[in-house]
């Protein structure tokens, strides 16, 4: 069962494609990351999912329905641009947002207390929003998104502007929600956020999806990376067999191996040529993968041999 299916949506602004021919399938109970640099079209995509923007082409189905008023109660949405009523008290604003999601008042107050203590802001319950720090406001807005326990939760850049501790807190909450069977779609421009959190990722660049799928499969597909640091001439690099690509930074080299190549063989070849100071077999980071794909499109500027 899929929580969200996007079929070939496109959106043009002033003749320029913000999102082009974008498709996505988000399985229920998964955490799906939409990754890409600033201006890639992440927020536009999310706004189209939320029906705030209407796609020029294509179709979006949430739990097999087009967006409608009843569906809205099952969705939680944290927009990229944050904002709360400055003059309202924390619990007032939380209960207002929850009531608008069709939650009954009797449930709301218990939930507010639960979540406020979870994020460590229970004693701020009766304070006005304007008295809170920016980070606190952001956490309040985060829980306002999930208070009504929606089945599909959409976070646009949930970690933007948060310190590492709070980032981890939110990640933990997201993982808990997943355990409860909720589906989470989120966007970020910082790839490292997605590494341990996401079951699935889609990488988008300049309005187009460049890659999507299960994170583990993507990583497997991109094989292992070798990282070498050494003293001496790097001419030996041409003699290594079974290599897909080399990112050459002088005395520091990242090597992308063919899937069947054994790093052990490479070590044997290299060890006689130069004095190694570092030899590491690593999974490629999402960052590497993204840069690789993007640079392939840009005529492989990083490839330097």
């Amino acid at each position, binding site marked *: 069962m899929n929580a969200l299916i996007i079929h070939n949506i496109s959106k043009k602004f002033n003749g320029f494609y913000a999102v082009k021919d974008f498709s996505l399938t988000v399985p229920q109970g998964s955490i799906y990351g939409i990754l890409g640099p600033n201006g890639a079209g992440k927020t536009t995509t999310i*706004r189209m999912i*939320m029906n*705030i*923007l209407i796609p020029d082409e294509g179709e979006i189905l949430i739990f097999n329905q087009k967006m409608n*008023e*009843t569906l*809205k*109660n099952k*969705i*939680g*949405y944290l*927009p990229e*641009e*944050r*904002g*709360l*009523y*400055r*003059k*309202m008290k924390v619990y007032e604003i939380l209960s*207002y*947002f929850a*009531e*608008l*999601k*069709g939650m009954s008042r009797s449930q709301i107050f218990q939930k507010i207390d639960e979540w406020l203590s979870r994020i460590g802001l229970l004693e701020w319950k009766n304070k006005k929003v304007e008295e809170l720090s920016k980070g606190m406001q952001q956490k309040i*807005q985060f829980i*306002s998104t999930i208070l009504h326990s929606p089945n599909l939760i959409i976070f646009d850049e949930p970690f933007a502007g948060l310190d590492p501790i709070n980032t981890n807190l939110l990640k933990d909450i997201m993982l808990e929600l997943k355990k409860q069977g909720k589906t989470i779609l989120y966007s970020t421009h910082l790839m490292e956020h997605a590494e341990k959190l996401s079951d699935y990722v889609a990488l988008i660049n300049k309005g187009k999806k460049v890659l999507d799928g299960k994170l583990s499969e993507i990583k497997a597909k991109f094989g292992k990376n070798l990282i070498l640091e050494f003293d001496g001439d790097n001419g030996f690099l041409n003699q290594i067999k079974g290599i897909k690509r080399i990112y050459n930074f002088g005395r520091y080299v990242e090597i992308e191996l063919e899937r069947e190549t054994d790093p052990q063989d490479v070590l044997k070849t290299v060890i006689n040529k130069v004095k190694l100071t570092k030899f590491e077999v690593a999974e490629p980071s999402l960052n590497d993968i993204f840069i690789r794909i993007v640079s392939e499109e840009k005529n492989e500027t990083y490839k330097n041999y």
Partner: protein
Amino acid sequence: MIFLSELLVKKKMKLIKIIKKEYLTIVKKKSFLISTLLTPLIMGAFIILPIIFAQISPEMHKKIAVIDFTGEIFQELTKNLNRKLKTGEPAYKLFEIKTTENEVEKVKESLREKVEKKEYYGYLILNKEIISKREAEYYSKNVSDLQTIEELKAAISDSIAKLLLQKEGIELEKIKKAMKRIELKTIKIVKGKEKKAGFLSEYFGLIFLVSLLFALILGYGMTIMRNILEEKNSRIVEVLLSSTNSFELMMGKILGIGGAGITQMVIWALLIALSIRYFSFRFPQIEFTIFGTNILIFFFIFFILGFFLFSTLFAIIGAITNTDYEAQQLAAPITWILIIPFLIAIMTTKNPNGIVSVILSFIPFFTPIVMFMRISITPPPFYEILASILLEIITIIFLIWITSKIFRIGILMYGKRPSFQELMKWIKYK
């Protein structure tokens, strides 16, 4: 069917939540409390107090010394100068000062001192030639007290007349009866009913009510504008739209904020009714019914109509602008539309059925104020009132439709303000 009605209830529930939140946000504000309590106070200060002061300024009896060289007039004068104060006391107390013509200057000097010390209000000298010359002298610190002067004049004249007529053997009372002038009372006819009122007090009462109507429509309209702008700038609007739709959001705001306005007026009406009861109990001799009940009902109706009409315009401005400054700029023409009726107010009061007033009262943007003016001066035929109200309602429905189209797109647009052509395009979108 059941599912559908359930859906309808759920949808309505959200609208009610929005109305409730917008309503409470305003009603809980300190400024709301202050303006709700302060306005009737100011109104009282402007309307009720002058009436009270004018009618019950404590009037004291006036002591007047009289030097009567004729020796006859004083007696008559005390009888003729017999007006009573509200307390039942006589308004004037006369004291005869006996003197001779040689000593008169001395006496006058001591009287001057006594007037200065306020022992006497003034003194009167009736010379021997008074009957032939018809001249008397009155000395007082306050010679612009026209009432006293007129009353003295009349009383002295009457006394002389009586003396002269007595000598001829004719009774003054008979002549007075025969010569009595009639008094012309001015009574205004309103809807076939009679109503006592002066032009001035009516004019000020009307201008006050119309200004209040203007201030309320403008004030609550501006509140909607700023409210939308706040949600737009703080980007709360996206969260709200993920829970509800733009039409519900807009209507929730208009109804919630309008509701706060109605609440304020109901409180005012109650306060006014209570204070009128109180004051008419305390001062039964004063008539406090300045505005008729129908006038107040029409005030209510035209506030609601005017508010709905202009709130849509203010909602558009809030939705298409990004800063307070920009919004104020666009709001200025609306303020002018509301001010125009004031420019013709004097004309309307003098001739409420003049062609300009009649035409303006049927143009929906002017109807609330101009029609209200006309009604409160000389009610036009009922069908005219009804027609203007219907026209107003149709315009409101049309404007709400247009506004919802613009609002839906505008609240999510940041940056450059859309041009008029772009707005037209938005209205044409599905």
